[in-house]
């Protein structure tokens, strides 16, 4: 083949997984992988020239986005002194005239709602944590670097979610997963480099919307969109043949079609025709290998038990968690789990309990599972929402229940593995978990740090769009938080 065409082919083969649909995570592994390895030494998802900029400490990321904003005060940011302020007004000096969401800005008073949960110190590091709601996460706190001083620009869900994922409140920018897929490609030729799960969330929780823009490629080519693996129906859209069409019928159809396509290629010479021929063959292989890949029967009983009872139910959080491990194990670059229902404006204690119950075991199991397999060292795990929640109560406040409004000024996120210092806590807030008193970490800083772990200098990682060298980390803040890193 002509060297130029060959090169073209290589380029277009990168377009593997276009914009949507590759659902259930583990694509054609086993058989297909072995086959591909033998047949081609080529890399489907190639990294950009010059990347990584430096030696990465993580090869993959798994990012738990707890959508709606989990309350930092009730899970991580322990403020025992608040007991003395129950139902007392938040001192004006704390609030200091800062912007409030209009959901509570009209409230006559801002009564302090201490967390009704008992915090305990867990792990060798003695991390304060709400182990009542997070018993499994409590077991892995020694692997976790907690950041108590994350802050963001946005005060409402939509812009804040867009901001945390794309570094900008305005829709249209590329998501962090797409940036990583674009820059680093992936080691797996048969899976997309960026996979997304949107697991179910508890009934009765306040489910805010998700937006495909949180995993979309924005201005980057669409092939870097996150591919959402579906929890119901075909894991990959349109994977199954229609009823009455067997695999061999499909083969007959493809044989005819490919002969005709080959003839067209001879006539017109357009390399895109060759690409299409290859893509149909890949599609056919996927039809047999995807089902094998979602099969959990190769997992040990012990592993499955660790994840808990719903691990084999597609669409649950814990199923998505084990799939995340299987994906990074196979070299997929980015896996994101978007779990909804964390927006507790009222009835927080009960709803937060439901949310934690739905997710805690899967999160804890994933960390342990990765660690046992020696994967945690090369996988960066991130956990967090889009902002925090207020110390003052929204709506009813008594010793049983309360609600909390949006709070962008500080919230907690954590990272584990992939070059992050285990068992540490970073940043401090005031007694009301209302203002940062030490070591602020802006979303841009956090994203810069994530890129750094993946071997990327965020300053040099740009894409020209609308006349600007676009960066994930925007134009302000952006500091790699070296204190968090090994």
């Amino acid at each position: 083949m002509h060297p130029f065409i060959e090169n073209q082919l290589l380029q277009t083969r990168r377009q593997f997984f276009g914009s949507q649909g590759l659902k259930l995570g583990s694509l054609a592994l086993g058989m297909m992988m072995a086959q591909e390895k033998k047949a081609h030494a080529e890399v489907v998802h190639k990294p950009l020239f010059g990347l990584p900029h430096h030696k990465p400490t993580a090869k993959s990321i798994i990012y738990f986005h707890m959508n709606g904003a989990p309350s930092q005060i009730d899970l991580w940011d322990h403020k025992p002194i608040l007991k003395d302020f129950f139902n007392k007004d938040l001192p004006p000096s704390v609030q200091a005239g800062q912007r409030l969401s209009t959901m509570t800005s009209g409230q006559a008073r801002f009564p302090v709602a201490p967390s009704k949960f008992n915090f305990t110190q867990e792990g060798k590091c003695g991390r304060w944590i709400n182990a009542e709601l997070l018993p499994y996460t409590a077991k892995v706190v020694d692997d976790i670097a907690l950041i108590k001083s994350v802050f963001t620009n946005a005060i409402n869900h939509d812009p804040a979610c867009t901001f945390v994922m794309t570094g900008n409140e305005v829709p249209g920018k590329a998501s962090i997963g797409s940036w990583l897929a674009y820059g680093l490609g992936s080691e797996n030729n048969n899976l997309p480099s960026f996979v997304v799960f949107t697991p179910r969330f508890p009934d009765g929780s306040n489910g805010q919307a998700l937006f495909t823009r949180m995993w979309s490629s924005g201005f980057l080519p669409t092939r870097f969109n996150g591919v959402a693996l579906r929890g119901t129906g075909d894991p990959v859209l349109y994977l199954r043949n229609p009823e009455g069409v067997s695999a061999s019928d499909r083969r007959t159809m493809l044989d005819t079609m490919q002969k005709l396509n080959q003839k067209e290629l001879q006539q017109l010479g357009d390399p895109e025709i060759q690409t299409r021929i290859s893509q149909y063959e890949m599609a056919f292989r996927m039809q047999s290998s995807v089902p094998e890949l979602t099969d959990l029967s190769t997992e040990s009983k012990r592993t499955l038990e660790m994840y808990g009872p719903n691990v084999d139910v597609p669409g649950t959080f814990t199923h998505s968690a084990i799939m995340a491990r299987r994906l990074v194990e196979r070299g997929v670059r980015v896996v994101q789990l978007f779990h909804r229902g964390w927006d507790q404006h009222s009835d927080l204690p009960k709803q937060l309990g439901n949310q934690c119950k739905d997710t805690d075991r899967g999160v804890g199991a994933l960390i342990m599972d990765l660690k046992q397999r020696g994967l945690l060292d090369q996988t960066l795990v991130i956990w967090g929402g889009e902002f925090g929640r207020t110390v003052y109560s929204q709506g009813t406040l008594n010793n049983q229940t309360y609600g909390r409004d949006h709070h962008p000024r500080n919230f907690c996120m954590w990272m584990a593995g992939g070059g992050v210092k285990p068992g540490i806590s970073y940043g401090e807030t005031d007694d009301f978990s209302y203002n940062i008193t030490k070591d602020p970490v802006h979303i841009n800083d956090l994203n810069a740090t994530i890129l750094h772990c993946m071997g990327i200098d965020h300053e040099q990682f740009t894409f020209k769009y609308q006349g600007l060298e676009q960066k994930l980390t925007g134009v302000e803040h952006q500091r790699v938080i070296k204190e968090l890193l090994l």
Partner: protein
Amino acid sequence: MKRLFFALLVLGGSTLVHTAEVPKPTLSFNKDIRPILSEYCFACHGQGKSKGELRLDSFAHFIKAGASGEKAIVPSHPETSQVITRIFATERKMVMPPPSTKKTLTNDQKETLQKWIAQGAKYEKHWSFEPIANIKPLDKTPYAIDSFLLERLKKNGMKYSSLADRSTLLRRVSFTLTGLTPTVQEMETFLKDKSPDAYEKMIDRYLESPKYGEEMARHWLDIARYADTHGLHLDNERQMWAYRDWVIAAYNKNQPFDRFIVEQVAGDLLPNATLDQLIATGFNRCNVSTGEGGSISEEWVFRNAVDRTSNFTEAFLGLTGGCAVCHDHKFDPITAKDYYSLYAFFHSAADAALDGNQLLLPPIVKLALPQMKKNAEEINNEILAHRMKMLEQASKLTYEDPALKPAKSETKVTEDVWFEDEFPKGSKVFASPGKPLELVDNKKGKVFSGTKAIRRIDAGLAQDVCENMAPVTIQKDSVFFAYVYLQDNKLPKSIMLQYHSTNWLHRAVWGDYNAIAWGAANTTERVNMGPLPSTGKWVRIEVPAEKLGLKQGSIINGFAMTQFGGTVLWDKIGITGMKDPSADPAKSFLAWWKQQTGRDFSEADKDLALLIKQGPEVVKAKEQIAKVRAFYLANFCSLTKSEIDPLRIKLEELTKKKTTLEQSLPGTTIFRELPTPRDSFVMLRGQYNKPGEKVEPNTPAIFPPLKKSDPKVRATRLDLANWLVSPEQPLTSRVMVNRFWQQVFGTGLVKSSGDLGTQGELPSHPELLDWLASDFRDSQWNVKKLMKLLLTSEAFQQSSRVTNELILLDPENRLLARGPRIRLDAEQIRDNILFTSGLLSPEMGGRGSMPYQPSNIWEPVGFTGSNTRNYKQDTGAGLYRRSIYVFIKRTAPAPFMANFDLPNREALCAKRERSNTPLQALHLMNDTQHFEAARKLAERLLIESANDPEKRIILAYNIILARSPSAEETTIVMEGLQKHLARYKADPIASSKIIRIGESKFRDGLNEPELAAYTMLANTLLNLDETVNRN
């Protein structure tokens, strides 16, 4: 190799290549120098930011000395030019760009700069800001385009390819102009026509098809960012499909493009604006919007205006204005002040900052569809007739006006009871929240008076609401009352009475004041009435109307009883007041008439309305007084109410029907301005709450100045629109012509069709672009004429065959030594399979349709309370409408759109991607829509052709590809067909399944295995690479 190199250099535009290979050319600032400065220098030495007081972005600036006193550039003297000294410096402190920027110039780039200064450092304004050049083509139409292209090819030692065959041409034109493949009949007509102008006539036929508008419009809708939902947060439905239909109609009637632009930007400001011109302004209502609770209104006033401004600059000027939101644009000469002066045109939008998740957020216009008009007329007539009947009956009633009684009755406390055993007739009663209303008698519960009471048992917040009761006027000293029964062991936290005037903000709470946290505390919105009433007995609770902010004369028409938890019994609910019947308009005709004198009544006919308006002092004729009196008795008198009630209830039903009908009239959002414009400011660092310098509406200084229609007042959006299409405007026409070129040839003459600014690419054929732009402008912006001009060029008619040589010389086909070959767009792929199968619905316009879609596309991302959370797939024709009519939900686009690169319409998209993925392969093979279409196409083959496999294969090729298969192709297809036939004959169960995919029925009397096998054949051909490309 040398030849290849030359080609790359020529094509490269902004790419800098060795100049040593070619004889010393004069370097061009725009082509050779600006890209270097722009990439390496402007960030610090550009507009707004000028490190060391040096700016390199304009000639006046760069020959001036900087802070150091030394001149950056001395024309013809590189040796004394600081720029040269600094870029060749080796010391860290001296070298430019500084090492901290992590940008380094290559040696080639340094030498180029040096050479350019040596050649005299000639400066050029960025090409697209220069006036459109007056170019004479080397040859006349229809050869004008080719004369430019051929000249360029000749320079590169290249030439056109041979013409494509006629079938290919037909299909190419048909897709370009209508988005569909030709019909068999169209194919036969064209192939038979041997006249010299057959090709032109064929183009004309497609230009006249209504499908032309549908194809053209979808490209514009990418620019307008049209969709059917708001896009943010709830992402509820937004109704503005009339705008989409307006775009289609505008193309179909070939509206001059300058008018097309003016009506979209400022249709509302045109004198005597028509409905269509108002609909056109929907362009500026296509931005994403939010209704998210907690959002700050001022922020969204700002953000909506920014969205509209940025979209304006990109859509019409092809410039990216977004940067200037925060700071002076460092690359394009648009300052922040320029930007905010444009923004001032959009800042006073009349639509609310937050969309309230409404279907039709005002300003809107209603669209009257013919059938609906007719229905409305019918109901109106019915209402009129019924009113007459009421007057007739009322005139017969016995009534004595208390005001005319000899002994005037005394003022007394009256008591109106609204609930005794039932709610007022005609009112609407419901529970919100809570279980349905429960009425109990003495056996089941307790009753205070009459036979029934209301009982409500609930663990949390629960409420009984009564709405739309006949209006009640609050009297002097009016007091609301209700009887309530509570039990010790089933106590609620609190109970509340609530009344509706123009809103529900009148509440009285007994018990835990904060348990029902509605309304601003300690205002009339939530009044604290103290502890719960005593238990174990009926207690009358009362609250003076005035305490709830309801003064004498206020009108209420609803009430509600609310509780938090427990069991509450309610009975006898109403109002008391001090009334003198002779002065009470509800009882005295005279009192009422005096009160109404001077008012207009739309319910009364013209003559009667005049009498009422004139009042009892003027109207003295007995007959006339009787007429007014009948009207009063029929509609307002409480004393005769019971006698007229049956008729009144019927009237209410009719009126309600009329309201429902009016509400069901579709509408569309339009753009209008506030009566008093907002003051606009440069917003510092793009923050909504940091206003800087005040600005007036104006256009950027780099362009020819804005001409105001009235120099004394501030510039209007209409001035702005007229400025856009004025002959001096250098960009508008270039931008549009370039986009049409892209549509036809796949790539624009300026490849970055969304950015003609300094960061965009240079045009491959600048003279051609300018000639087309001026020709388009001077042809009264005639789009059909332009399309025909492009399609009749020889360039367009070439074969798209690619040779290795051509790929090497011109991989992207920018020089057009071969015809364009493009993967079909998402809509074309879907429409085409519907069209060839005969399923396509011809219906145009209207609300977005919901075709086949796998489950769980909307649901996993949708907000719980969103009205677009659950996908409601259409049935019947709704499944088969053209894709331009498919409902677009921004946060979860349909798979056929996302898989085939349709933008999600959150922001403008000037150029779509064309990806090629295995997910597309799965989609085309297995999607129900595609497979059903294959099945219906198979039916056509069996029915429309003689019973001969070969003939059927030929027909299939005719239908899908507008050509006949070669002998070799027929053999290949036949071989596959025979295999499928054998297989499905042997497996009738599989056959019966395959022919039932999709909703449409299959034709009776067909042989099932045969239909199954032909379905596979159709599926094969519909998946061909040739089928999904415009070849």
